[in-house]
């Protein structure tokens, strides 16, 4: 018995003592499999569809005040998304390592950027995160560690952004944890956002990618500010109770307001039971599917 225990212990010790043996190569081009949340990642979510977001009251009110014209403000046209755009956007990934030229040791993994997202460096050399008074930049600050063959990256110091591209906000105090799991030619990312300003619980999404020989870009193009109809200094927004899209999801899909306005409860399967009597299956869509019902908006 004692011998068995010792054998098991030694085996475990060996596993722990040589984690590098289990690390895997993430480098290459990875094409996004956008079947998951296709509408959200592609054309974009419906206005005021925040079902499944664990909003607190401030998050919901902030989202309700959002006008799509905000992104046409000259001051905001060239702003990038946070690294959450890996989850919210449709883009593929280019991943490479940056190695110490002398030892070959991996100092960092880098995820290439895209048109609306900056490249993301995952520091593997044990450096600490900057102080709370340090600036937040387009990429945030990310450190990583291996647990066996799973890489976990933790990002702080991000700028304000959106959890969903219809104005669901994320604050500069949010953190993002991304877990990279590779299974052969498939790569799965599990992303967790925690935001003490706008969320009551962590918000979790997964995304899948497939290895591709087609090169993926390492960075997006430059951004030039142009006039998009909003004068400098004007701040588009909706006043409380004046958001014209608040019942958009009800009009299109018969999804009641208590679901579309989000909250932690709407993330869980039990919530369907709660609203089942309020939900009437809409007639089968035959034309202009996913768009507002003509004349109702």
């Amino acid at each position, binding site marked *: 018995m004692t011998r068995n225990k010792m054998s098991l212990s030694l085996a475990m010790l060996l596993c722990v003592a040589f984690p590098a043996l289990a690390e895997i190569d993430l480098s290459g081009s990875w094409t996004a499999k956008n079947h998951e949340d296709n509408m959200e990642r592609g054309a974009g979510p419906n206005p005021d569809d925040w079902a499944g977001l664990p909003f607190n009251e401030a998050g919901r009110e902030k989202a309700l005040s959002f006008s799509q014209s905000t992104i046409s403000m000259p*001051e905001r046209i060239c702003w990038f998304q946070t690294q959450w755009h890996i989850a919210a956007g449709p883009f593929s990934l280019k991943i490479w390592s940056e190695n110490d030229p002398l030892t070959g040791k991996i100092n960092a993994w880098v995820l290439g*950027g895209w048109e609306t997202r900056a490249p993301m460096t995952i520091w593997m050399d044990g450096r*600490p995160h900057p*102080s709370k*008074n340090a600036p937040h930049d*387009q990429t945030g600050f990310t450190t990583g*560690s291996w647990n066996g063959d799973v890489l976990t990256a933790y990002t702080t110091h991000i700028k304000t952004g959106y959890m969903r591209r219809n104005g669901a906000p994320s604050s500069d105090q949010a953190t993002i944890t991304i877990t990279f799991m590779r299974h052969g030619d498939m790569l799965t990312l599990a992303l967790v956002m925690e935001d003490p*300003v706008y969320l009551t619980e962590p918000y979790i999404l997964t995304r899948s990618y497939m290895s591709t020989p087609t090169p993926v870009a390492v960075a997006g193009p430059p951004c030039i*500010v142009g006039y998009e109809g909003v004068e400098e200094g004007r701040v588009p927004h909706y006043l409380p109770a004046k958001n014209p899209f608040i019942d958009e999801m009800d009009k299109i899909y018969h999804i009641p307001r208590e679901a579309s306005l989000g909250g932690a409860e709407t993330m869980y399967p039990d919530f369907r039971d709660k609203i089942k009597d309020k939900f009437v299956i809409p007639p089968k869509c035959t034309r202009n599917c996913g768009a507002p019902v003509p004349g109702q908006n």
Partner: protein
Amino acid sequence: MHPSKTMSRIICWTVAVFALLPFSAVLSQAAEPDNGELDVVRVRPNFYMIAGAGGNIGVQIGSDGVVLVDAGTENASGRVLAAIRKLTELPIRYVIDTNAEADFVGGNAKLAKAGKTIFTNGLGNAALADAMTNGGAAAILSHDSVLRRMSAPTGKKSPFPDDALPTEAFYSKRYALRMNDEGIEVLYQPAAHSDADSFVFFRGSDVVVAGDVMDKTRFPVIDIANGGSIQGEIDALNKLIELAIPPTPFIYKGVGTYVIPGHGRLCEQMEVVDYRDMVVIVRDVIADMIKQGMTLDQIKAASPAKPYETQYGTQEGATSAFVEAIYKSLTVKK
């Protein structure tokens, strides 16, 4: 206990502890100072921000010496001086005040006295240098409104000691100087947080020290009784946005103009835009409620700043004071 069992248990516990390490390990500890310690953030190769001494302090260093923007509290001034000495042995030449609050000007006297006037007299006429300057100390520069706020009419007691008062006060909207090979503009903002605010813009370093016009830790404090107003606050924030340049067109390649707020972390233009938008939106909401005939109490009860309270309203009374200041500012009889 049997020795082999004891050894076995020790090994098991050791293995368990090591086995858990990878899962419990914090990815990286933040390099943040303990409570009460100053945080010296490098902004540019020759520019630093000192946080934790009351209001944030800007520190420009060059061959002419040290230019400080704001001085923090009186209590923290010894630690601030020690932090500056770790950066350079060069003398402090200017302390520029962005406003007259105690957490910004409290350290004026000590930091100025630790410095040295630019009127160094090569012929050795120390008496002349003393007579022309603040006793040979570094100059304390501000808009006249700061001097007025810090001093008192004849016969009344000043809230600050004489040696803390600005030694160089200007009356114009803009005061310019050149130190350490770069142009420095002190830009007066007439009615923002109060009637005594200025931005200090370092044109070469591309850094703006914004004072209490922007407080990243809370809603702006708008001191109506001392000349502040909501429109003046918005005007000042718009000016700050105009001064700051974002890192376009290669937005992911670097940073833009840095903005040091009165309190809170180092910012860029984007954070100023976020802050301005917040102020404008809350102003618009309250203006609409006033239009509906709501009283101040009714407006406060309706939580017009709700979307921003979890970020800027966590300090006691911050939300109520902000809402009240906007209300008073919008309903003042002209």
